[in-house]
């Protein structure tokens, strides 16, 4: 397959220079030393430290895994650790997300749950055997017990993700952290709230599951203003992070908060567990993204808008010919312009048209679009960027006892909090897009004062 690496010298149609600037942080010739990883026995050129999923995509490999029941081909969709599409075996360890595992020279990446490989998996017949669904409630009940037993033993052998690791896992001793406030999620809101909390004199621990801070700002392809300077998303986010560190906040990157209890929060940072005991917990962990419902929406080559923007930041274009569509979203225009600037042919839908189906056998080779099934026509493309409304990541705050309720404006569920970030739990606070009505601007300083009031006075409403 053709390389999808972007040559920064060939960028054109970039009048304000913002695409080049966004690219340059990673795609510049001096970023990340060249290295070689191995994928199913094939050598792949990569850059030290970039996500393996993007090393592979850069080399034109977009089918990385197979789905659990139907063995449908899958590839990275979200590129931010929220889907199952890029699960691979890395250096003998099963179920690593290729979007979160960094490339290092000599790393061995292998397909799992497929035979002989994810690209060509003969178990795909399962998908054709069950054309609509896999009804495990009624499957097999009409056959005799012998056939049933044979099928069950087969199904048991097939079930599960990956096979056991070659070596027993090493788990270093956990780190215990005591602080006044734990901030989960360092997007723009989390960064501001954490900074304001440090300004209130609190000891703050801030965790972010990605290896960098900034959230949507970091992945944006627009200019951001900081200290009177015009910066790209990555630069602006790095500057915000530097301020946070300078203010004395203990910042943990690549650190996923997995579970939270009254006594503490379990955070997994790279290869080690943290046990964080905080007087107050603040959830600013934003939203999930998806591609929406259309035919074969799980084909490799279908990406969220954010994934496509992130790939660009690492110097990879998701396709040569890309359909960009979805809910009204100004970011889609910026993404389309950027994809054009790096040499991709961009297709957009006309008024009233929608994406009906992704087509292709092992990855996207086209899209069926139209007003309805009858007027549908086919677009030839090798990637589809489909954006839908983002939905709040209410789960962690929910574990902490914060009610998640209907947010009818956004047709989703969101964590219930007042405009000061307070919830029905006096020690738990929620701010930003994860909160109910999260579209309105949040006053980070007011949220920080609510937290300070609780921590210093123990005030219970």
């Amino acid at each position, binding site marked *: 397959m053709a390389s999808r690496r972007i040559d920064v010298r060939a960028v054109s149609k970039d009048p304000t220079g913002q695409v080049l600037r966004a690219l340059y942080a990673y795609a510049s010739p001096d970023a990340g030393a060249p290295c070689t990883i191995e994928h199913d026995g094939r050598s792949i050129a990569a850059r030290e430290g970039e996500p393996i999923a993007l090393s592979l995509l850069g080399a034109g490999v977009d089918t990385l895994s197979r789905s659990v029941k139907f063995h*449908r081909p899958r590839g990275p969709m979200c590129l931010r650790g929220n889907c199952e599409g890029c699960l691979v075996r890395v250096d003998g360890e099963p179920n690593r997300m290729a979007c979160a595992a960094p490339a290092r020279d000599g790393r061995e990446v292998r397909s799992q749950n497929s035979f002989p490989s994810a690209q060509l998996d003969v178990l795909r017949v399962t998908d054709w055997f069950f054309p609509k669904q896999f009804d495990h409630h009624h499957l097999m009940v009409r056959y005799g017990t012998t056939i049933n037993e044979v099928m069950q033993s087969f199904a048991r052998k097939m079930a599960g993700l990956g096979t056991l690791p070659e070596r027993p896992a090493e788990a270093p001793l956990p780190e215990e952290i005591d602080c006044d406030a734990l901030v989960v999620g360092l997007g723009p809101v989390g960064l501001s709230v954490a900074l304001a909390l440090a300004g209130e004199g609190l000891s703050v621990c801030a965790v972010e599951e990605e290896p960098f801070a900034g959230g949507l700002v970091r992945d944006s392809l627009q200019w951001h203003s900081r200290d009177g300077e015009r910066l790209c998303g990555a630069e602006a986010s790095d500057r915000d992070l530097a301020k946070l560190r300078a203010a004395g906040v203990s910042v943990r990157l690549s650190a996923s908060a997995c579970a939270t209890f009254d006594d*503490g929060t379990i955070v*997994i940072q790279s290869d*080690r567990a943290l046990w964080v005991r905080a007087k107050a917990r603040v959830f600013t962990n934003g939203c999930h993204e998806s591609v*929406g419902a259309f035919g074969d*929406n799980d084909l490799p080559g279908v990406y969220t808008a954010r994934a496509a923007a992130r790939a660009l930041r690492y110097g990879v274009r998701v396709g040569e010919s890309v359909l960009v569509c979805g809910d009204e979203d100004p970011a889609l225009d910026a993404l389309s312009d950027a994809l054009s600037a790096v040499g991709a042919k961009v297709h957009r839908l006309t008024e009233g048209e929608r994406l009906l189906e992704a087509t292709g056998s092992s990855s996207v080779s086209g899209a069926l679009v139209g007003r309805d099934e009858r007027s549908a026509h086919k677009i030839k493309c090798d990637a589809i960027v489909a954006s839908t409304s983002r939905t709040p990541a209410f789960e962690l705050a929910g574990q902490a006892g914060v009610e998640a*309720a*209907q947010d009818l404006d956004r047709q989703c*569920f969101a964590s219930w909090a007042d405009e000061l970030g307070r919830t029905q739990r006096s020690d738990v606070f929620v701010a930003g897009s994860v909160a109910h009505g999260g579209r309105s601007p949040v006053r980070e300083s007011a949220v920080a004062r609510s937290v300070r009031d609780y921590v210093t006075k123990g005030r219970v409403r």
Partner: protein
Amino acid sequence: MSAKVLLCRCEDVTLAEVEHAIESGQHDIESLKRFTGFGTGWCQGKQCLIACARVLAARVGELPLAPVTPRPPVHPMPLGMLASLGDAVSVDRVASERASEDEGER
């Protein structure tokens, strides 16, 4: 071959399967989850919960009042790492505290 619309990628749950479940009487989001298995896979419902809730809303008229109960872990974690927490988390201590609280209430 007809295309499948995948609502839950992790567990391969299709739109047809969710519609069939709703037709067979699973009219609340928790029952729908138990019947189809959506949201029980790798990502724990980060993409599919809202997709299934919206399909349900289209059939029964409104989005459910609340989502399914979120349970830990929200992000996959190796069991070895959970075990490494050992004494720090001290499940026994938490359990004994809870037990004494229950005693007090009686």
